[in-house]
């Protein structure tokens, strides 16, 4: 039987606010345990939550960016359950009335096409603390630094049909929240994490199959593997005539498999009800318009503009707009190169990206800035440098030897475009290699490369390649 996979994702994006969603404690990652938890985060008696306006602004910004409806009135609810790292015995979340609903995100497919994925809702909630089970000799340590960190839970429609699509959606969403500067997208630190709802059904079937929810998958690779494992598992069950049980499963990265956490029967009754300590959240039109006015250019429209304005291919434009920093960097390089759109694109995506990758650096912290790279490209465009020499200059810039012009000057790398000088070098090479000259003239055309190489060697690679080729042919054929 042919099977169709149906996937919906729940992404938890940690909002990049300075303080927590309901208290004034700091949100910075990695502090000593329990040093960033105030009385509110500890759930001490009598303390009350006060909503962080910045978290709401970020949620609205996200909603606007995915073309969603922003609720004028939304409600915080309590999700009640007992766990040691949940100090109040309930999590404040949004349940029936979320702040963002009915959005959409367009993803690029591998065949070059696009697909629109529905976003059911995005709601604000607080994170819990962490339970630490190692290092406490059979006891459990509780770190409440993370308790109360603002999260935006972004729930997709079950529109995804493969693990690859799920990853494409997740990557696109991550790029978007980073563009909006509402989440750092750091998956290792858990600022961007994913639960996947996966089910399968026979092709043509309209009803959804029974789903399993895979919890807390913290890398793109694991998302793909976990979903693929789960699809296989479910198809296997169904083909053997068994049924899929609705349950929560955990992905075990070490074993590359998912395993059952709890079934639907064991599912908790969270007893959601509106939090009486918080008034309904009102987002008025005027404020929403202020937020809209500050919406940055988003990846999709930036990509369109790059294609139109710089004449880039769809692929190049997509790569260059994959993050806001990269796109801004490209535009700055293009500008200081004097409008060398293609060369700038090639260099940013090529040698520059490779060097960043090699040294594990961020654009903002690397030794070559946009003005320097643009200056290098100018010297390629005006024939001062050949492509090959330009690579040397780039490496020297990366090593901190200054900008392109001073390196060219210092190292004497200026390309030789003086016909006389090139001719002289050719004459010397031809005179030193009479044997090869004869062979060439006897019809061994391939030897042209040999002569080019010899002349380049003699000129330390500085001869203008086009001129050299032309002059060499003229001399050999005369």
């Amino acid at each position, binding site marked *: 039987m042919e099977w169709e996979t149906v996937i919906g994702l729940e992404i938890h994006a940690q909002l990049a606010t300075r303080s927590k969603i309901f208290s004034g404690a700091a949100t910075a990652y990695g502090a000593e345990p329990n040093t960033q938890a105030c*009385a509110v985060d500890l759930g001490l*008696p*009598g303390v*009350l939550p006060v909503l962080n306006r910045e978290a709401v602004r970020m949620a609205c910004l996200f909603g606007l960016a995915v073309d969603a409806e922003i609720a004028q009135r939304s409600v915080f609810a309590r999700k*009640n359950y*007992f766990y*040691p790292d949940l*100090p109040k015995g309930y999590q404040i979340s949004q349940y029936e009335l979320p702040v963002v609903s009915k959005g959409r995100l367009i993803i690029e497919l591998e065949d070059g096409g696009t697909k629109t994925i529905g976003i059911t809702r995005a709601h604000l909630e607080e994170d819990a603390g962490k339970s630490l089970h190692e290092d406490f000799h059979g006891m459990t340590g509780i770190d409440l630094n993370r308790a109360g960190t603002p999260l935006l839970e972004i729930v997709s429609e079950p529109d995804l049909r493969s693990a690859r699509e799920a990853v494409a959606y997740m990557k696109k969403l991550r790029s978007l929240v980073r563009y909006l500067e509402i989440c750092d997208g750091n998956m290792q630190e858990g600022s961007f994490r994913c639960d996947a709802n996966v089910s399968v059904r026979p092709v043509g079937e309209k009803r959804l199959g029974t789903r399993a929810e895979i919890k807390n998958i913290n890398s793109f690779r694991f998302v793909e593997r976990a979903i693929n494992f789960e699809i296989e598992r479910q198809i296997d069950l169904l083909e053997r005539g068994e049924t899929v049980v609705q349950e929560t499963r955990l992905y075990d990265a070490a074993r590359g498999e998912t395993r059952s956490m709890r079934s639907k029967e064991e599912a908790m009754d969270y*007893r959601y009800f509106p939090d009486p300590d918080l*008034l309904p959240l009102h987002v008025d039109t005027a404020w929403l318009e202020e937020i809209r006015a500050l919406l940055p250019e988003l990846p999709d429209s930036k990509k369109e503009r790059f294609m139109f304005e710089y004449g880039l291919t769809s692929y190049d434009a997509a790569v260059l707009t994959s993050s806001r920093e990269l796109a801004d960097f490209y535009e700055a390089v293009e500008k200081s190169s004097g409008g060398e759109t293609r060369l700038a694109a090639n260099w940013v995506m090529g040698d520059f990206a490779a060097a960043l990758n090699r040294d594990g650096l961020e654009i903002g912290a690397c030794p070559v800035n946009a003005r320097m790279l643009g200056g290098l490209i100018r010297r390629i465009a005006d024939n001062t440098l050949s492509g090959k020499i330009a690579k040397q200059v780039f490496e020297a810039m990366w090593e901190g030897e200054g900008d392109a012009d001073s390196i060219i000057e210092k190292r004497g790398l200026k390309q030789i475009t003086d016909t006389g000088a090139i001719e002289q070098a050719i004459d010397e090479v031809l005179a030193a290699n009479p044997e090869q000259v004869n062979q060439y003239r006897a019809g061994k055309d391939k030897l042209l490369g040999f002569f080019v190489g010899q002349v380049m060697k003699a000129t330390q690679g500085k001869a203008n390649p086009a001129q050299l080729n032309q002059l060499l042919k003229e001399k050999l054929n005369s």
Partner: protein
Amino acid sequence: MHDKTLTELAAGLRAKEFSSVELTRYFLDRIARYDGQINSFITVCADYALQQAQAADQALANGDAVSLTGIPLAQKDIFCTDGIRTSCGSRMLDNFIAPYDAGVVERCSGAGMVMLGKTNMDEFAMGSSNETSYYGPVHNPWDREAVPGGSSGGSAAAVAARLTPVATATDTGGSIRQPASLCGITGLKPTYGRVSRFGMIAFASSLDQGGVMARSAEDAALLLNVIAGFDERDSTSAEQTVPDYGATLDETLAGLKIGLPEEYFSDGLDTEVARIIDAAVDEYRKLGAEVKAISLPNTGLAVPTYYVIAPAECSSNLSRFDGVRFGYRCENAVDLEDLYKRSRGEGFGAEVKRRIMIGTYALSAGYYDAYYLKAQQLRHLISDDFAKAFEEVDVIMGPTSPTVAFNLGEKSSDPVSMYLSDIYTIAVNLAGLPGLSIPAGFVGSRPVGLQIIGNYFNEARLLNVAHRFQQVTDWHLRAPQPFAD
């Protein structure tokens, strides 16, 4: 000394007739002498009080004093106090010392007032008789066989027995007005949002409201001046200016429209209490008020509505008492579930557990719509009743409680009959309105309270209406005999 009004005490301090330290010692001595008979304090903080009193004397000497500087008060043990135990009447918090002051406590200290101690109360403010306190019941100063009412029974009894000039209290379903009525004092529950809930241990967040207990409306007004006002740490706190409640006490009542809800004078009301309330209303006629019958048709729904909403909220509010971070923790827990079950099982008393179970049930999947959601709808109907009534009248009057104080033990084994003793007070909390109770007479030795309900943020009018009554009657001046000297 113990019969002086706040105004007289403030004047005495300024005239150097006595110092704040002397005044504080005087009340600490009274507590030491009398509280064994009524058990109105859980904690007496003599050293802390004397330190505050010294600072107050300094402020008085420097001319930095404000109106109530140097005057002692008692805080209900539901308000967190930095460095002094806050038990909320529960074994669960017998060892709990908050690292912060509640908004109310902060304001009192900021105004130079002196905290004598923390008053007894029903456990987590759940009760109408003060019998659910882990620290033992409070006795009614008028009759030690009788309950003082609850949950703020300690504050009411302490004020009635003249162990403190004034006290703070809280009211979720009548917990200020009912004990004020049963102890023959003046108790005001302000509009929901008028007084900060920050640092006030939550029972039912949408109903809880801090307020004041005093011997007179005038004293209540002066204390309300101190504790009322916006607090940015409480999202439900009202961002509204606070009038000077003392400034309008003497305004005339001529033309005041009083509504008497027929539902408050029906079956369950004790005939003697009814007679006293009628007599009080007659006093108001003499003061120039117009009295008319009104109807609050959904009154009968108030108790059942309340006993869904309040337990639902409490079941969630009390989840934080889990033995993990603070408060009571059972011995030798074998695992997490055991830790939870025994810490909560041993730390909470029976009434608290009953309400947690009722509330958990009401919020459960499959029952939520039938109970919690329905109760919220009824809450709107109850509020609408009042809104309609206030189109016709300025204040609503009736009995605070259907009977005078009942005996200790009389209702403690019958929760429903206990719940029904709050039948006239609960609707006010559901609507979020201000209400007060003033002494209006006695049945035998036991006091009867008149309840006056006002429109939102109309505390000034309520206090004015109460004050004018106290200008022509002396019920509020009577002291229970054993504590008169």
